[in-house]
């Protein structure tokens, strides 16, 4: 399995993660149903406003699903940042992972690796984490 994602989305996710530091940043990339094609990035508010937790506001979540249903889109990528730990799903991430079809992208902006960042993608299905390759396209 591979996540194919444009450089502009990678840049936007990294910029958002830095801008919202020390809180965790989060969002989704949407695409047409059934295509596994990440075409529209939507940053979401971390309603937990926390360096160790993120959560889409339940009202925003409902609005998001209504919006994508109407547009025949689905959630292709769910991303969030880790501010102090590596870009690997935590136990909390796995417990909450409710979209078996999504790529779970984690970005780490932890100080030890600055100015570098980690950008990794995973499938999380029935509690099992599988890392996948990330292919970045130039558009």
């Amino acid at each position, binding site marked *: 399995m591979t996540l194919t994602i444009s450089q502009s989305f990678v840049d936007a996710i990294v910029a958002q993660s830095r801008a919202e530091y020390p809180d*965790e940043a*989060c969002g*989704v990339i949407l695409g047409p149903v059934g295509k596994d094609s990440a075409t529209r990035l939507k940053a*979401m508010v971390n309603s*937990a406003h*926390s360096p*160790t*937790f*993120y*959560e*889409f506001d*339940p*009202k925003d*979540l*409902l609005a998001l*699903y209504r919006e994508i249903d109407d547009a025949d889109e689905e959630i292709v990528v*769910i991303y*969030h940042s*880790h*501010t*102090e*730990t590596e870009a690997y*799903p*935590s136990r*909390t*991430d796995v*417990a*909450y*992972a*409710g*979209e*078996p*079809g999504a790529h779970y992208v984690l970005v780490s902006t932890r100080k030890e690796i600055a100015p570098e960042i980690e950008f990794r993608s995973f499938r999380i299905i029935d509690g099992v984490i599988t890392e996948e390759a990330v292919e970045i396209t130039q558009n």
Partner: protein
Amino acid sequence: MPLLGDNKHMSIEVRIPTILRPYTKDAKVVAAQGGDLAGVIADLDQNYPGLGERLLDNGALRKFINVYINDEDVRFIGGLTAPVKAGDSVTILPAVAGGQ
């Protein structure tokens, strides 16, 4: 909008998220009956065995799941005792959350 006088013949529409569709034979929307959310969940579990346990833990709504009646998050309108009437739409969504 429900038609006047037709309410008793209408059921409640329940929208099922992808992760729970294995219980509903991949149906995205199913019909249910019940006077409150607990009743709707009991009815769902009767028709789609196992679904109830994915929504409830020790008789309370699981924290990983968000449930809405029409546009309202049930946490703010009584949780399992939130009233539901024919023609209402119940939406179940997995919470999107996590942390390090």
